[in-house]
């Protein structure tokens, strides 16, 4: 087993070289609720994600995977610890800065696709550009280019409901790519798809989304797609228990 770089026991005050590093989490905690009902979802997560890698977060249901990528993506406030994305800390930003930073830097792929049902495929893909202030016309042009890349360029005028699940996830991936974010987070991107479709979607993510300056974090408990990971972080009980680079080592 090759457990890598950042020892889970690294003291928080030891500086690390941030060159080529996308995400640094150290001692991240998150508790939902208070008192009797409190759930300690994250109990001190240490994790380092490099630029250009596909990092998978795996582990049993309820171990805190979704909570962790929510913190990394800046949609959930952590309680304690350190977490930076490309050197920036969401906790130190004002709300509108945080929103704008998300809009520029992060792409999202969801288990349930979350495509807006009344928009066409091209318009759905264009949304992140619209959020960043593009005009509808230019954004849709750009979106069509990306749709070509993910192999459904001919369906750009359809509405999502006319597409199969696999096709819809391709649209969602196009949407996550269109504004060229440096970090893409995917929560169970294949769990609504059959195995074969899931593999093709992962193939697409691996080839189209991972790049020199872009990292992917993919949350999954689907062991059939582990093979697409560069590294895998095993989580349990609110912690990262270890990191492996080879599926066989799991």
């Amino acid at each position: 087993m090759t457990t890598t770089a950042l020892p889970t026991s690294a003291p928080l005050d030891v500086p690390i070289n941030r060159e080529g590093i996308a995400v640094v989490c150290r001692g991240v905690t998150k508790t939902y609720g208070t008192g009797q009902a409190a759930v300690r979802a994250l109990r001190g997560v240490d994790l380092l994600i490099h630029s250009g890698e596909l990092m998978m977060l795996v582990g049993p249901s309820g171990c805190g995977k979704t909570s962790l990528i929510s913190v990394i993506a800046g949609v959930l406030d952590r309680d304690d610890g350190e977490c930076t994305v490309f050197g920036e800390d969401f906790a130190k930003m004002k709300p509108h800065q945080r929103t704008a930073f998300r809009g520029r830097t992060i792409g999202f792929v969801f288990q349930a696709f979350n495509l807006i049902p009344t928009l066409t495929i091209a318009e759905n893909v264009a949304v992140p550009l619209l959020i960043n202030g593009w005009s509808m016309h230019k954004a849709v042009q750009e979106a069509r280019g990306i749709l070509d890349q993910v192999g459904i360029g001919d369906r750009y005028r359809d509405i999502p409901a006319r597409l199969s699940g696999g096709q819809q996830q391709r649209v969602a991936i196009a949407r996550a790519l269109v504004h060229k974010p440096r970090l893409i987070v995917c929560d169970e991107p294949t769990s609504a798809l059959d195995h074969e479709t899931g593999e093709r979607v992962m193939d697409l993510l691996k080839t189209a989304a991972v790049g020199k300056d872009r990292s992917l974090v993919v949350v999954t408990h689907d062991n059939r797609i582990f093979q697409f990971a560069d590294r895998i972080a095993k989580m349990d009980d609110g912690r990262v228990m270890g990191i492996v680079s080879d599926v066989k080592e799991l």
Partner: protein
Amino acid sequence: MFRVALKMLVGDSARFFGIVMGVTLACFVIAQQGSIFIGIMGRTTALINDTTYPDIWVMDPKVQYIDDTKPLQDTQLYRVRGVEGVAWAGRLYKGMIRARMENGTFQNCNLIGIEDSTLVGGPPAMVEGTVGELRRADAVIVDEAGATTRLARRTGNPEDAPIPLAVGDTLELNDRRAVVVGISKGTRTFQSQPMIYTTYSRAVSFAPKERKSLSFVLVGVKPGLDAQEVCKRIAEQTGLAAYTRAQFRWVTVEYYLKYTGIPINFGLAVGLGFLIGTVITGFMFYSFTLDNLRFLGTLKAMGTGDVKLLWMILMQALVVGLLGFGIGVGLASLVGWLNRGSALAFLLPWQLVVVAGAAVVVICMLSAMLSMRRVILLEPAVVFKG
């Protein structure tokens, strides 16, 4: 992003239709009922508007509205004439009289007697004949609406159309012969009874004998004088009530507002329309937002700020508001227009359109506010929840 908001709204066509219908309903009820209310209120003052053309109406101080006549001594005319600033003053008789129809049935009519010499106080327009012809023996003028409906002659056969009363026909008013010399055109009055115009002295002779018969003194003000000032002088010097036209109209309308169920009735209808419209719109708009919460959350996660999301919701509310307002007021106008010339009192002034518009704004704001609350409280992290 506004395009996105618009498409989210319009794309859900069934819901969109429902929300617009809610606003339309409220707007229609407010505009339509309001118009009828204003139309009816207008009719209560129809005779004041139609009487040509005194500056001031003088009457017993206890008179509460135009149909509430309290006869004065004839000598009051001279006292009014004596007031400084009065250019002319004429008598007006206003009463009810029974007209006997050819088939022996009776019809209650308004009888208006206007000053014999000047013929001031007559109808505003003539369809046939002239007011001057009232100087002929037994002459009366009948209003067009009365002549064609209630005073029209019916043949024995109920399938035949009634024959309108025409110039040259005779009537029996309180057992006295009257000859129709003209047909006038005026605003329909509240009670919608036929109007019969004649001279003051003939009116008094037609009417049942009473000790006093002078209903109103109509006054013209000397040029350059303020009518209100002259009103004050008349009141001081004669002890009578003197109102300008506008004041008398208000006195009359106020009476109907205060002492009849009409405003409450229409107020209830308008209030109910508003309430139902608000509930439908608010509920459907809110449920529209709830159904879209997942997508609003997605937009939020992907970097749409709260302020932008709120604007999007506001714009959606505005769009349904504008549409509903347009359709509602349009429908109300259409209904009014289709009923033009019928007995329906309908008057849609711009002020009422503004009121309907304000109601729509309130409805949309309430609906949007409910939804906005949800969007503000929305945690973007919900997007990851299965």
